[in-house]
């Protein structure tokens, strides 16, 4: 049970950390100042969510482990994030679509997790839900703006939807860790989330005059089990540079 809970925290936290890393990477590259700041703000919310979960994970594990140790001092195979968040910042359309898919997902998982039987998870979820509600509002509007905008913006966002779609099947993949925690009322049933996610994504795509691609299963080893896309090595190499070079550095 404890090990499952630790893994569950890492899956949520790593996904937020890597997405936040991608958004931070985009800082100062936004289309205009206000949007640049808005995207970075979303990234900051996400790293805050990750930090709360890492702290809890460190507490579960014990032995003097800190949130920073977990966040920055693991090997690639020990990271449990979704593949979708590893996808590079190809252009603003990709960033928007990746964010939109994740915002819908986070919105529904935190909506359910705030009723988790684990009090800490429930508290983190309740706090995160407020932030995520705002993220979702922003990214949904951008989907419509781009999809129902000019021919160029429509084509760019449709391309991003098509390219990123295959990564979304992983969002609802469940294993024994999920099942055992669901039985205890800690975790949530991702099949249920999938229904709501599909409905919401569908609604927004229709409103944005975008087409929903066909379902594809893209990988045999998912991020939640430590398998990663070719992008992950580069991310960790840069992210872990400082703790590797100066292991005793403090904030």
């Amino acid at each position, binding site marked *: 049970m404890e090990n499952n809970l630790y893994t569950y925290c890492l899956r949520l936290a790593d996904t937020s950390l890597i997405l936040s890393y991608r958004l931070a990477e985009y800082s100062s590259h936004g*289309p*205009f*100042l*206000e*949007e*640049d*700041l*808005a995207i970075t703000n979303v990234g900051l919310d996400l790293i805050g969510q990750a930090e709360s979960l890492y702290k809890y994970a460190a507490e579960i594990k014990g032995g003097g482990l800190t949130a920073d140790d977990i966040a920055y001092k693991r090997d690639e195979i020990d990271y449990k994030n979704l593949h979708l968040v590893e996808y590079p910042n190809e252009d603003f359309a990709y960033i928007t679509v990746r964010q939109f898919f994740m915002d819908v997902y986070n919105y529904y998982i935190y909506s359910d997790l705030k009723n988790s039987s684990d009090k800490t998870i429930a508290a983190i979820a309740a706090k995160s839900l407020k932030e995520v509600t705002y993220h979702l509002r922003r990214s949904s509007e951008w989907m419509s703006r781009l999809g129902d905008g000019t021919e160029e913006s429509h084509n760019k966002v449709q391309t991003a939807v098509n390219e990123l779609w295959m990564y979304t099947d992983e969002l609802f993949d469940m294993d024994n860790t999920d099942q055992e925690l669901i039985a205890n009322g800690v975790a949530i049933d991702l099949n249920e989330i999938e229904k709501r996610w599909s409905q919401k994504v569908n609604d927004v795509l229709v409103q944005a005059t975008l087409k929903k691609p066909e379902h594809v299963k893209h990988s045999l080893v998912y991020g939640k089990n430590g398998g990663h896309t070719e992008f992950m090595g580069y991310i960790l190499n840069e992210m872990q540079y400082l703790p590797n070079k100066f292991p005793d550095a403090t904030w």
Partner: protein
Amino acid sequence: MSTDNQGPIWEVFVQSKAGKPYKHAGAVHAFDKEMAIENARDLYTRRNEGSGLWVVKAEDIVSVQAEDAESFFDPSDDKIYRHPTFYTMPEGSKNI
């Protein structure tokens, strides 16, 4: 970062607490109302500055033109009796 079209300017007004007046905080660029209120939120109220927020398109604000300033404001210059400065303050009161 591109320097071409960033959208029109919107003026931002923040209310610090319920019941307090809205104060001008600054301006943002945005292409529509939703973007304007969200950009305003992200720029001006992220650190607990507000409980209320208004944005208004700068071009919709009617203002006195610089060349009209004389005729609008100067006539009050020599009419100091319009201020209540000639009254003695009642004992104990701080404002009248």
